[in-house]
């Protein structure tokens, strides 16, 4: 029976867990982290690092917590003298050949060898007079370096490529203390999901060339976010140093991306740092755009919207549910055409994980947009724009062809934009809005899962979220105006206005999102 529960006592805490669960996972339920290296919840367990050895009462010797399953009435000691001594020994063995180059190692500060050594390792070495093992640094692939000297042979990277990517391009070569992670000269680590080996590496042995020497881990600020790369909606962390995004990392969500993200999503972040930003609202005065304050700009926007008999909204699929929803409401109930542009690419699944792929549609909020009435007939929408009274561009970087089609729309164009674009010159109003890295918001992924992302860096200049812009105009001027002041309020406003979101509140979304239409609590 899958649901059968057993009771185990780990470090004095008794927990009820499903039969068949490993001790290491049961310990997590009890709030206890059993130190480990080779174990990873998304990989098969080889039980080779021997770091997670624990004392189980009545067992003749220490047992690896990563592969030993719980039994009813089991009593486990993680911090007994014998278990601690065994871990101290594993650390000592791992360190005899590990260089003490933490000062120049990218992993420093987020290194599990460093952490556990600090926590419970020996203060000094007993391996003083011998040379450490030396192997040269190798380039495994376009973005992955292998620093063999730091390798602790946990084999997570090999297992990821073998069992998850199902493209075995890495191996353990040689044996004994001469062993290292190898690759065939006829192959390279260029799999579309290969960057995950860098995340999986518990030490600084596998490094991202993109991130090489860019920042110390302790200087990074991390914001939980959603990958804007495609409709999968992988949970990520946007990591900044001094307010500059320096890397994206996957954030576990067992329902969406487990512990992984693809290289396309991982490496597509430079646009978040663009310096050529619209920093102030610009209002057309004669043949010039003049910087104005928000009050003036919002009044102007209100006037334009109210006087338009027909409106076309052309939006980016990176715009949030809040922004798309309130901008759509702003356009009113007249003749409105709303569309998002959806760049497409090849679908690249991660073979070993069901329902995880870099998706064909390379925007994060395609499904949210659809629920808010945004179509995908981009050519038709562009064409409609030429005939509309008002055209609103929402965070769109237009290509030359698109700009040419829109040229006749000059004089009836409102740009809610991030980066400066040539089309701005023909607009009546240009309003600086935030990018997804600079705001809180919600995306809906391909499985109708609404997921929150958080602000990772400050907005430039006077930029505001597009939902704020629309919300201010919609609220009007009166004393009882209730413009949303947070993304949460904006979301609830949108949810109350659009049937597809009916019954959902921002507070329900939690850390791992919620599937629209599902009962509250049905999806975690």
């Amino acid at each position, binding site marked *: 029976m899958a649901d059968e529960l057993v009771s185990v006592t780990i470090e004095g805490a008794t927990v009820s867990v499903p039969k068949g669960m490993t001790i290491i996972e049961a310990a997590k339920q009890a709030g206890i982290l059993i130190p480990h290296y080779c174990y990873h919840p998304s990989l098969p367990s080889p039980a080779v690092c021997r770091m997670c050895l624990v004392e189980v009462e009545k067992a003749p010797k220490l047992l690896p917590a990563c592969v030993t399953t719980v039994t009813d009435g089991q009593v486990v000691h993680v911090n007994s003298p014998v278990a601690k001594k065994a871990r101290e020994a594993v650390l000592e063995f791992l360190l005899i050949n590990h260089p003490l180059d933490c000062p120049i190692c990218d992993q420093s500060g987020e290194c599990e060898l460093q952490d556990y050594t600090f926590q419970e390792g020996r203060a000094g070495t007993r391996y003083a007079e011998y040379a450490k093992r030396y192997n040269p640094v190798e380039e495994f692939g376009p973005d992955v370096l292998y620093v063999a000297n730091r390798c602790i042979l946990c084999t997570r990277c090999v297992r990821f490529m073998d069992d998850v990517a199902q*493209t075995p391009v890495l*191996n353990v070569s040689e044996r004994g203390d001469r062993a290292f992670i190898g690759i*065939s000269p006829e192959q390279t680590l260029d799999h579309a999901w290969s960057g995950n080996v860098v995340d999986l590496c518990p030490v600084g042995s596998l490094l991202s060339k993109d991130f090489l020497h860019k920042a110390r881990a302790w200087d990074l600020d991390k914001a939980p976010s959603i990958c804007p790369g495609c409709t999968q909606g992988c949970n990520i962390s946007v990591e900044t140093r001094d307010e500059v995004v320096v890397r994206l990392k996957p954030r576990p969500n067992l329902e969406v991306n487990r512990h992984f993200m693809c290289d396309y999503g991982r490496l597509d972040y430079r646009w978040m740092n663009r310096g050529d930003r619209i920093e102030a609202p610009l209002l057309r005065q004669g043949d010039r755009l003049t910087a104005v304050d928000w009050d003036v700009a919002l009044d102007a926007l209100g006037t334009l919207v109210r006087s338009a008999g027909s409106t076309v909204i052309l939006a980016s699929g990176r715009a949030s549910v809040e922004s798309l929803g309130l901008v759509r409401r702003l356009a009113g109930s007249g003749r409105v055409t709303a569309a998002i542009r959806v760049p497409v690419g090849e679908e690249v699944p991660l073979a070993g994980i069901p329902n995880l792929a870099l998706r064909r549609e390379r925007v994060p909020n395609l499904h949210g947009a659809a629920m808010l009435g945004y179509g995908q007939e981009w050519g038709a929408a562009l064409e409609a724009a030429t005939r509309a009274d008002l055209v609103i561009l929402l965070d769109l970087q237009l290509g030359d062809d698109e700009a040419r089609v829109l040229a006749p729309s000059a004089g009836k164009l409102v740009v809610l934009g991030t980066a400066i674009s040539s089309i701005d010159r023909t607009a009546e109003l240009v309003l600086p809005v935030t990018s997804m890295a600079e705001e809180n918001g919600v995306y809906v992924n391909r499985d109708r899962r609404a997921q929150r992302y958080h602000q990772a860096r400050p907005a430039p200049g006077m930029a505001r979220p597009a939902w704020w812009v629309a919300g201010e105009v919609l609220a009007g001027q009166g004393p009882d105006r209730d413009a949303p002041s947070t993304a949460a309020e904006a979301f609830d406003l949108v949810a109350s206005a659009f049937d597809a979101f009916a019954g959902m509140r921002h507070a329900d979304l939690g850390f791992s999102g919620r599937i629209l239409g599902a009962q509250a609590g049905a999806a975690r």
Partner: protein
Amino acid sequence: MSAAHGHAAEQGHEPVFVGETLAELERRFADYPTKQALLLPALWMVQERRGWISEQAIGEVAQVLGLTPAYVKGVVTFYTMYHTHPVGRHFIQVCTTSPCGLCGAEETMQAILRHSGCGELGATSADGRFTVIEVECLGACGFPTPVLIDDDFIESVTPETVPALLERYR
């Protein structure tokens, strides 16, 4: 590139698994439920025919068995009898593990190094005739010192019998 770890490439690799060799391999598929199980036998077939296993040969084995070159290489480097570099015409393995070591294996090995012209372990003699390596336990501890020359297993070699023994291998 993994050249740093010194696996040699081969100039102009001629495929091994063609004709009768391929047919022999394919006949053996019937003895196992997976093709992968033929990996060690296939590597032996390469080494028997070519004397060593080059990067290109690894690629070829990977292809005929539906594996990747990296996978095959991980296996090749696990087993010490597969040569990842060309060796002399006659490959000499001398057991020096404890039981033989007790009975003079070290001296026998020195004699072999001297008479073969190899000078040091792992080296190939200038005439390309011999490569000598020290090997762990050959499983004939009652007959010190056992020596494996190519596929010939010779028991009870002593420094005195080395010159005549090597004469048999031109």
